């Protein structure tokens, strides 16, 4: 079954959050990532699959191994979501300013 995945689902699990922190600093193979956890290898594989489906990780074939790369751009979706609460008014007014600058004077 192909379930709909999004970035929010990706960070809902503590192991997946730990994986993201690991891979954010350097691309790693599935084996190297799994070595950091006590969890069974298939469980880690499942987490990697979900993170890849959510596009927070990208698989890159390097020689015989697949390396997982962190996708910072996708992570920004989360940042944006949180930011709009923090700077609610400021965000809106910045947008207002941008929109009105593009308007022709009446």
């Amino acid at each position, binding site marked *: 079954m192909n379930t709909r995945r999004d970035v929010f689902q990706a960070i809902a699990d503590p192991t997946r959050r730990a994986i993201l922190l690991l891979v954010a600093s350097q691309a790693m193979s599935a084996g190297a990532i799994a070595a950091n956890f006590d969890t069974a290898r298939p469980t880690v594989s499942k987490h990697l699959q979900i993170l890849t489906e959510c596009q927070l990780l990208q698989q890159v074939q390097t020689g015989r191994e697949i390396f997982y790369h962190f996708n910072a751009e996708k992570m920004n979706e989360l940042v944006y979501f949180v930011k*709009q609460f923090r*700077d609610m008014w400021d965000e809106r007014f910045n947008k207002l300013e941008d929109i*009105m*600058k593009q308007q022709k004077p009446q």
Partner: protein
Amino acid sequence: MKTIVTAENGKQDLLITREFDLPVESLFRAHVEPELIVQWMSNPYATAKLVKFEPKKHGSYHYESVDAAGNVVFNSHGVFHDVLPNTRIIRTFEMENGPFGIVLEFSEFESLGANKSKLTIHGIYESVVKRDELLKMPFREGMNMAHDKIQEIGENLK
């Protein structure tokens, strides 16, 4: 952050000020033209809809915020008491099922030159408790963190 939120302890009002690099006419239009309002009130996660919008004396309005899946995230509505072009808008505001009750808002539009203007929103809440409910919302943290930082820097200068 260009938007300044001032909330004095123990008071039931809130002051929001913001300067724009826009003529006051543009700033005002952005508040009364529906097609402009929905643009700046929307974001990638929620689209603003104006179910009803009558920016005039005794007119009323009803905003709906809808997420990507089509769910209504929140409803807000109120009544316009005065709409004076390029000068002010006085209205009430209520977020349905929100914790902060009904707010009376005085928005003043001020020209600071050909391409500069200022918006001042003075919101009056039913009680100190209701106003403080609004301040609990997470956007406030950004402000507090900034203020803490200023405090910290200031103290290091002593």
